[in-house]
């Protein structure tokens, strides 16, 4: 299957050798009382140092599950994983807990959404940051760790960091908590930052500040960032590459510019159509994607998107209902990968748009 190919046409960097993170044919399944949940299926992507990859999708599309797999955060006993995740050339899948521990928070760090829940309510913010530092600098003194915590809080823009370091998370505002979360992730100068919906719980101005901060830090540290989000606005601002996920699979993958300007898969069109734009007529109603995300216990046969797709009639036969489309380069040569049976998606889309503007 084409998802197995690591040769990735969207790679911007001309680095020799392998990108820093390579996810190859990753499949993650959770056995539950109701049956096997296929959270992620045959997912492949890669990311270079200094680059930002946005992973977009609805809840349950597998975006968080796949990024947590990079840190080996899934319970090995309760999860079935196959494929390969290589961080700096090291295979993560099947790695022992002790070795995983050395990767977590060190080479790869994670910024979680909802910092109020993700920070421990009983410990001081500074203590939680220095704990992350000490976990990978066992020889450092607690005074060094505290200094590090103060400088990190300063770096992420917390005022009076030498005083706020002794605050508890509940004494911080929402934006400050998210900054503290970022400071904690930066404690060991990670080469890859995974930000799981880092701005979802924040208001728009704070959201913009946090995104600016992440970009600034990326410039300074040259780290790679994976931005997991359902917000295409965040993607447009941050990401070099975009991976659109649906029902645990990649359905569209390419450079941000290419995907946002020439989306080639009906699901991505739906995502783009559901965002309000400043310059459109306020009378025009937003078009939500009809239906619900599919159950991962028994995903639809064929293309998982077919129950919600308006264009299944344009595909000859019942391909959409019987056969999973491969993730192949888009037929119009725009350079990104799509998973769709449509013969010429670009043409279908423009025809559809023309039809809509006539109404």
């Amino acid at each position: 299957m084409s998802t197995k190919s690591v040769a990735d046409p969207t790679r911007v960097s001309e680095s020799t050798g392998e990108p820093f993170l390579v996810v190859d044919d990753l499949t993650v399944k959770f056995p539950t009382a109701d049956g096997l949940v296929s959270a992620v299926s045959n997912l492949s992507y890669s990311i270079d140092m200094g680059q930002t990859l946005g992973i977009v999708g609805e809840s349950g599309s597998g975006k968080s599950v796949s990024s947590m797999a990079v840190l080996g955060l899934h319970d090995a006993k309760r999860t079935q994983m196959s494929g390969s995740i290589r961080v700096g050339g090291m295979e993560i899948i099947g790695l022992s807990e002790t070795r995983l521990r050395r990767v977590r928070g060190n080479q790869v760090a994670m910024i979680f959404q909802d910092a109020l829940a993700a920070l421990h309510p009983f410990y001081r913010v500074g203590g939680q940051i220095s704990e992350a530092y000490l976990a990978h600098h066992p020889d450092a003194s607690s005074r060094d760790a505290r200094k590090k915590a103060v400088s990190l809080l300063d770096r992420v823009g917390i005022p009076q960091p030498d005083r706020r370091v002794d605050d508890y998370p509940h004494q911080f505002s929402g934006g400050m908590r998210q900054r503290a979360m970022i400071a904690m992730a930066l404690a060991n100068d990670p080469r890859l930052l995974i930000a799981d919906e880092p701005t979802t719980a924040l208001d728009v101005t704070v959201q913009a500040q946090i995104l600016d901060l992440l970009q600034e830090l990326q410039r300074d540290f040259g780290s790679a960032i994976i931005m997991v989000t359902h917000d295409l606005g965040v993607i447009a601002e941050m990401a070099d590459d975009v991976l659109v996920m649906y029902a645990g699979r990649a359905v569209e993958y390419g450079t941000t510019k290419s995907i946002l300007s020439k989306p080639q898969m009906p699901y991505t069109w739906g995502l783009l159509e559901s965002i309000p734009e400043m310059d459109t007529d306020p009378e025009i109603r937003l078009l939500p994607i009809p239906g619900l995300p599919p159950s991962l216990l028994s995903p639809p046969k064929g293309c998982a998107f077919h129950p919600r797709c308006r264009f299944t009639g344009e595909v000859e036969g019942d391909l959409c209902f019987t056969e999973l489309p491969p993730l192949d380069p888009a037929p119009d040569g725009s350079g990104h990968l799509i998973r769709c049976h449509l013969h010429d998606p670009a043409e279908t889309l423009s025809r559809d748009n023309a039809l809509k503007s006539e109404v």
Partner: protein
Amino acid sequence: MFGYLVRRLLSAMLVIFVTSILVFTLFFYGPSDPGLTLCEKSGRCTPERAALIDKALGFDDPVTTQYAIYVKGVFAGRTINIGGSAINCPRPCFGISYTTRQPVSQILSQRIPATVSIALGGALIFFPLGLLLGVLAARKRGSATDRMLVGSSLVLSSIPYYLVALLAYLYLVLIWGVAPTTAYTPITHNPVAWFTGLLLPWLVLGITNSTAYARFGRGSMVDSLSEDYVRTAKAKGLTQRKVLIKHGLRAAIVPVLTIFGLDLATLLAGTVFTEQIFGIQGIGREALQAIGDQNFPVISATVLLAAVLVVAANVAVDVMYSVIDPRVRLS
């Protein structure tokens, strides 16, 4: 914090005051006749004699007068005339025992050390043991170890405690003789005898009570391990032990402590079965005996002691909360 403690202390005093009135009233209007009981105990009882006792102990007085005398005795002490002899009852005077004519406060202070020894020793076993088993089961959730721990804890806790204690005494002490005979020796007297005499009661009380803590601790731990902050701790690269203990258990222990506080208070107020079965003279046994003898001063004093302990345990748990969880402000 200080204001909080003062307010809690005042409300505690109110609770104790109301309890004492309730107990007093219940006895006054209850079906018992302490004067007659005392009279019958003394052997030749004539109606005149009974009337004499009633008069001497003030049973003829209105309940308010009796209560006033009682309260005055608690704060100032009093002298009680009975059977022609005057018994000095120093403060805090809760009256004298109808059977032994000893001041109740003196009896209780003799009995308290045994009960405290049993309760604290047992708690020292069941709290850590239960929590340990709970953490173990939570960590291996769904595994055979988990099922075995939960199952055996359910089986053990569904057997009545007195049966477990009786069988343990019967087999371990009387039939097999593997456990030392149980008895209470003051620790100041002979620490070794104190320890060996209480070893079996501690073990029986500790192990049976630990089952509830194992199940409760497991539930609380399972909840806390699924919290986002535990995932954060793991993602930081902390060792599994740190994730489990420092981040998981610290949060899981809070609800368990609430139950522990109240359990401990109840135990300190008298470990009736343990004392009765293992033949240890503590508060629980004293109260049991007093109820059989209609020995009102002793009963009311033990009830008051229980009220004080429960109120104190509640305050202690609240203070502990504020120490563990910085979000809790006592006010």
